[in-house]
């Protein structure tokens, strides 16, 4: 069945190992600065959009290596429309809803061409990339629109005060955050134990106790460590709440629901899925509608964080999202990938971004590095699989 333990272990956890190595690398080159509470905090809030976009991109990639090149432009466009609306004193809630609806509509538009007319995704979304960039410019008329709604900024994680307030009034240390971390760990352990007991009682296979405990220990340690770091800064960034929400919802969706199954199935063998009575066109369509929706959400988070909307926002976002997915183990041919992988991939990209910024590297060379990292991640994936569809 499985080959030697060492090689399978290595292959399964390659990206996590890579993540650890990269963190160590940057700790050294930034003299530990990268692990400062403030920077951990920045890592999360500055890369919230990557987690959100990559989750949506994952769903598209699962269906067969299909991507969406327009997300950056959609982020900008949705943000632009929302900002303009709020500038014109439109109700914040209405503006937020409008942005999400726009995302959904764009997703439906692109999804229609891709799923029902069979336009190759990269062309359809390439067209979208240009069209929506142009529209963003047109909407903003080339100018920056600043956002003044306190409520909006607070809820979506922007400005200076974007943290979950400390209910325990700790000085210099956010107790709520620490406690939240502890609760998270407790819940995780409880759920894992419950599953294990359940499975054992029904006679199903369970993983060896040793590895389960090891995995739990490591994950708990990481959670506690992050909570500690965040608590030492200002607590839970609001952006984190949104990230977690998206990850949990889509984590559930991809592993436990029918539609999640269908996304994997379509990427695994489209014909077989169709012959099983599943409407594969609808599956592709849903993947792209969802992407539009999440792009709009990312747009909301972006303009909140930067408290403004500019025509240049979102550039390169598609790169980050695609990179996070592939680094996280998604297959370029579809059918393989997970939300957990996206987390690792997005974190890795975020650490690289962060690390390079702290090191003071020229923004242009950062682009070069990003390109190379993407290439290496995919090359690795392809070489280790060496299987074609």
């Amino acid at each position, binding site marked *: 069945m499985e080959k030697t333990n060492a090689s399978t272990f290595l292959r399964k956890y390659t990206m996590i190992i890579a993540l650890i190595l990269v963190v160590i690398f940057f700790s050294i080159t930034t003299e530990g600065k990268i692990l400062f509470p403030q920077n951990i905090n920045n890592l999360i809030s500055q890369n919230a959009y990557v987690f959100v976009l990559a989750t949506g991109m994952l769903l598209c990639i699962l269906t067969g*290596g299909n*991507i969406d090149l327009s997300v950056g432009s959609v982020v900008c466009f949705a943000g632009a429309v929302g900002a303009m609306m709020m500038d014109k004193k439109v109700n914040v809630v209405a503006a937020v809803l409008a942005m999400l609806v726009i995302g959904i509509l764009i997703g439906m538009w692109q999804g229609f*061409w891709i799923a029902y*007319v*069979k*336009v*190759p995704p*990269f*062309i*359809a979304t*390439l*067209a*979208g*990339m*240009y*069209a*929506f*960039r*142009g*529209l*963003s*410019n*047109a909407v903003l008329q080339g100018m920056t629109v600043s956002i003044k709604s306190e409520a909006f900024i607070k809820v979506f994680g922007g400005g200076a005060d974007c943290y979950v307030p400390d209910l325990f009034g700790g000085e210099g240390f956010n107790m709520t955050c620490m406690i939240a971390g502890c609760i998270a760990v407790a819940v995780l352990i409880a759920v894992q134990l419950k599953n294990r007991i359940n499975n054992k009682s029904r006679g199903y296979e369970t993983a060896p106790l040793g590895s389960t405990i090891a995995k739990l220990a490591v994950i708990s340690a990481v959670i506690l460590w992050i909570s500690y770091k965040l608590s030492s800064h200002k607590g839970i960034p609001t952006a984190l709440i949104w990230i977690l929400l998206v990850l949990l919802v889509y984590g559930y969706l991809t592993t436990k629901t029918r539609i999640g199954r269908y996304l994997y199935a379509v990427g695994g063998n489209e014909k077989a899925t169709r012959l099983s009575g599943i409407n594969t066109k609808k599956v592709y369509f849903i993947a792209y509608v969802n992407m539009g929706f999440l792009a709009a959400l990312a747009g909301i988070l972006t303009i909140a964080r930067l408290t403004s909307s500019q025509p240049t926002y979102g550039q*390169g976002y598609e*790169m980050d999202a*695609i990179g996070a997915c*592939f680094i996280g183990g998604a297959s*370029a041919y579809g059918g393989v990938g997970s939300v957990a992988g996206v987390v690792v991939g997005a974190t890795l990209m975020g650490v690289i971004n962060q690390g390079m910024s702290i090191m003071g590297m*020229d*923004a*242009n*060379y*950062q*682009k*070069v590095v*990003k*390109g*190379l990292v*993407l*290439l290496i991640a*995919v*090359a690795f994936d*392809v*070489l280790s699989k*060496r299987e*074609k569809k």
Partner: protein
Amino acid sequence: MNKAMEIFRKHTMKIVLVLIVIFFSVMTEGQMFAASSFQALIAQNAYVFVLATGMLMCMLTGGNIDLSVGSFVCFVGAIGGHMMVRGGMSVPVAMLLMVGAGVIYGVVEGFLIAYINIPPWIATLAGYLAFRGWGTALLNGATIAPMPEGFIKMFNGSIPDVFGGAALNITCLLVGVIACVLFVVLQLKGRNDKVKKGYEAETMTSVIVRCVLVSVVILLFAWKLAQAGGIPNNLVWVAVIVLIYNFITSKTTIGRYFYTIGGNVEATRLSGIDTKRIFFLAYLNMAVLTVISGWMTMARLSAATPTAGTNYEMDAISACVVGGVSAYGGSGTVFGMVIGATLIGVINLGMSLMGIDANWQKVVKGVVLLAAVVFEIMNNKEKTKD
């Protein structure tokens, strides 16, 4: 009625082109037909023809594209600018080195795609990012200008009039006439040969119609260009490249292999053809052609800037798709691409003449690309049994 539909389907893009030209002529109150417009059409779009030729070769192999061309143009400009302007290097040497850079990039890219099996759009997406960054970094975010006269003249200049015409460049007119004659002769000879050998040949009428239409277009161009100063050098570059690649794709064995790979790569491999080598060549070729279009850009701007080449991949892919190149590979011709590139060039020019905002131009470009692909797919759906 059926005959009309058939004709429409066969020559859709050409008909669309004519309609669009008419549309813009009306909207710009005839400015579209000014001599300067014809010149601008060529000057502003020469790079598209060159890039799209390379993109065509890539797409034939299976709908594969190269997203890095625009960024690589910027990079080429940056190193070219440093060599020729800052470094004072001689133009021919610098050009040689730039070709060298293209070859190196093409080899690396081709290797990664053909031999390591990295999906092309990912490999070139990495290039899209990396070269933009590298190019901008080399330029320190600034512009290097002006480019040496000799270099610029190679592209922006025009062929001098051997006959010393005053208002009209007679050489240009003459060349136009000769081109027409050649075309008609070749068409007639081709048909004659077919008839002699017993193949199906088109009716004499359709050959005549085609000769007349093409001649009109050639002469129109020749006349307008003659008024505007003669044959632009850019046009010579484009014509040579187009003719060479048309020959390669339609008459050589290697050109044939590009098509069959796009049709069925395994079947081609098992027929004894080195398919990896073809993929490799497609991307190597793309890189070298990108260098040439980089030169054209540098000449036109007379500078190397960090924003050079923006959206170029879009233009090239659109030109191919609009020109009937299949997004899945295996079909498409150089002349089809020429029509497609011309169409897009006309749309660009028309919009500029009409004074449409650059942002809305972007939107229109996106919509046109989408429409072209949809149309091509719909067209093919009818042809194949589902």
